[in-house]
């Protein structure tokens, strides 16, 4: 650790140039990015907002369907429950790094071993 790093050798530079060219060509796989929240506070914001917004959408749909069909409280109650479920689902996806995709597991193509456990870094 104490010795100074030698200047980049030509092989090292060559490797980095090739790496950059490879990335520019787009050979790298698409990987999902779960770190959208940034810090822990960002994740807390995100979780709260995901939970509430799905609930709001559910209640709004239920309320409007009730007004339209004249089934006063029932659809509101049903969609309140569905909205809550959607909110929990959103939170689950946000915290487990699924992005916004449908499904309950990571896609097989981009399931990577280092995908887990690095939440909280920006």
């Amino acid at each position, binding site marked *: 650790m104490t010795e100074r790093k030698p200047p980049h050798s030509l092989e090292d530079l060559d490797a980095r140039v090739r790496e950059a060219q490879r990335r520019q060509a*787009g050979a790298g796989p698409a990987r999902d990015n779960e770190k959208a929240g940034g810090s822990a506070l960002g994740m807390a914001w*995100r979780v709260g907002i995901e939970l509430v917004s799905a609930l709001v959408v559910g209640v709004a749909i239920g309320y409007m369907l009730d007004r339209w069909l004249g089934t006063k409280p029932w659809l509101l109650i049903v969609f309140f429950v*569905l909205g809550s479920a959607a909110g929990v689902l959103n939170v689950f996806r946000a915290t487990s790094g699924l992005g*916004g995709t449908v*499904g*309950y597991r990571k896609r097989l193509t981009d399931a990577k071993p280092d995908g887990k456990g690095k939440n909280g870094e920006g």
Partner: protein
Amino acid sequence: MAEAGAHSPLHVFQIEPIVPIHIGRYDVSFTNSALLMVIALVLTTLFLVVGMRRQALVPSRWQSLAEISYEFIANLLRDTIGNEGKRYFPIVFTIFMFVLFGNLLGLMPYSFTFTSHIIVTFALAICVFIAVTLLGIARHGLHFTTFFVPPGVSPALWPLLIPIEIISYLSRPISLSVRLFANMLAGHTLLQVFAGFVGALGLFGILPLAFVVALTGLEFLIAFLQAYVFTILTCLYINDALHLH
């Protein structure tokens, strides 16, 4: 109202018409919000055009900044969408720069933060939402509806899960817009409230003053972070529309 509003911490969010314009019953005045949007557009354009005017091999400071912001979004697109993502670079980059400049310009003294208004962020989010939905339909046609069917689930559960998926999908523009709006609103309100304490506490006003200084630093971080979050979620939504599941 004007006297009461002048001391309110929420006064900074007041929309004031600069050039009153009325078309029919609609008020389409050129407001301070619109002025800041125009400034953001002009500054973004200047930043990129002036920065890239002399395309030197060894970049100047401005050119370096312009290149960094380009590469930042290009990498983001490649990481989230893959190689196809390059096609969506213009719109994603525009959204990022617009939101970023809106957030940053709002931190200037006597300025106005247009991203602290839900209608502005919601308009941005609903545009992204509609565009992404149309993109999904254009790419996959009727196959797009399978987006709402979670894979690996028995059909007996579909009547329950499909409404949940649809609600989850429809909540996207709301969560996207509320996140940006709430962060900006909360940060600026906090700044205003603590700045109000500085004068009121006399000598001890140094404490809230120090806090405001620290908070301003945090607000700069949040301005970048929220622009980044808005952009990355846009990328994720585009990715979802392109590769269903």
